[in-house]
């Protein structure tokens, strides 16, 4: 049923642009999003991710049921709203994607290289299991208030490093995250830019990832969002699950505290 709804939504998308003739573009995009919300194709990833979570996989042929996402082994509900966090077993602050890799290695016996060799999918040709698992886990946190703790010293450190990285200017163009995301009411071309230095901006932006990107026909995770921002900043390639990726995620997730988590969403 869910799959059927998503398929209908995809069909609706093909004709939707024709309905854009009137009103301001931003308003119309907002209406478009609202119209699609009920049949977000992200559900296709969520369903596949749930199956992957419950399936016996890897060299050890076990499920991910024993994976501790921070709220205890196998507890999925609401876990994403409290990530990133420090995990004593790994002695490291981890975001969801990094933790999933950890569980695939520790529980299912994958090599780390195998577990993270395909972090971002590309349509039907290249499906990403990590993306699907991320969609499932995040969907189980929908409505949960963001509650990222800074209780362990390594969590505090990650947050402060993330803040530093947010202002780090480099590359050929001198761009930092703050170049585009440090002021209210700005846009690139017609795309509105959230001010990630305010609670309101961070809440609105962070709680809407992962998202199904209509223009790409793909579900995109928060790790992908950072990866692609850095590409546009003219930086080299951000390594999946790297310290910088986790620190920036910690900074933005913590700044979003208090808001109900609202993903996976749908975006242009």
């Amino acid at each position, binding site marked *: 049923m869910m799959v059927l709804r998503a398929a209908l939504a995809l069909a609706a998308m093909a004709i939707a642009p024709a309905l854009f003739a009137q009103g301001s573009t931003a308003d119309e995009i907002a209406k478009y999003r609202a119209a699609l919300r009920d049949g977000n194709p992200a559900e296709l990833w969520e369903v596949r991710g749930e199956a992957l979570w419950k399936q016996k996989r890897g060299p050890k042929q076990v499920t991910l049921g024993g994976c501790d996402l921070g709220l205890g082994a196998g507890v999925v509900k609401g876990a994403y709203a409290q990530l990133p966090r420090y995990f004593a077993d790994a002695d490291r602050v981890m975001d969801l994607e990094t933790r999933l890799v950890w569980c695939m290695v520790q529980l299912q016996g994958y090599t780390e290289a195998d577990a993270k060799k395909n972090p971002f999918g590309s349509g039907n040709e290249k499906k990403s299991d990590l993306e699907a698992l991320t969609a499932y886990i995040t969907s189980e946190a929908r409505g949960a208030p963001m509650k990222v703790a800074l209780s362990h010293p390594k969590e505090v*450190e990650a947050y*402060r*490093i993330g*803040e*530093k*990285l947010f*202002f*780090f*200017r*480099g*590359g*050929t*163009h*001198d*761009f*930092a995250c*703050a*170049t*585009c995301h*440090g*002021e209210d*009411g*700005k*846009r*690139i*071309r*017609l*795309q509105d*830019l959230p001010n990630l*230095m305010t609670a309101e901006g961070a809440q609105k932006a962070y709680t809407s990832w992962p998202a199904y990107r209509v223009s790409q026909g793909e579900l995109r995770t928060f790790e992908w969002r950072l990866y692609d921002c*850095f*590409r*546009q900043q*003219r*930086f*080299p*390639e*951000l*390594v999946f699950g*790297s*310290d*910088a*990726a986790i*620190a920036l995620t910690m900074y933005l997730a913590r700044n979003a505290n208090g808001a109900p988590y609202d993903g996976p969403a749908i975006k242009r």
Partner: protein
Amino acid sequence: MTLSSRVAIFALSAIVAGCATSVDEGEIAAKATAALKGSFRPSGQAGLDRLDQDETQRVCSAVAGKVPPKEIAAKIEQTNLATVRYPADGKLLGDWKNGEKIAQEGRGMQFSDSPGGPVGANCYACHQLSPTELSFGTIGPSLYRYGKQRGNGVDVQRYTFAKIYNSEAFTACSNMPRFGHKGILSEQQIKDLTALLLDSASPVNQ
């Protein structure tokens, strides 16, 4: 940049980091730099050297989105102004039609861009220019009627060329890239953009 001005800016950068904060803050900064260096891989035309900051980038990162103190701002502007290479032929105005294409072109220098492919300035990402282009951003000020408001004298031409060449020469820690200084655009491309802004026939000035 001369050695003495580099030393001066470095010293100022240490003062910025030092006055606002504790030793602990310096430690976090060092850890952030280490985290950054270990978190990227070279890809396409984007090598890890892109993470090596020059003095301007370092100082402007340290002020964390705020305007730097006056004397530091003046130093940044002075050292960046010294980098501007004006055209040897003395001609500052190119072809505004090419300028419009460069202003529209968003590709160039990303690891996903082909190294021999087009490199644009993507001015419209942040500025309004020609009134017929409705898809413009607002990070920078509107440049519609830029030349009409300022005239087209040699001083205005030189300022405009230099501003595109190195924006930090006039506004320390500006959000705008230093297109000439960082080798993003060629001298001819900057001349064409200068014409887009100043030529009386350019759509920007209609």
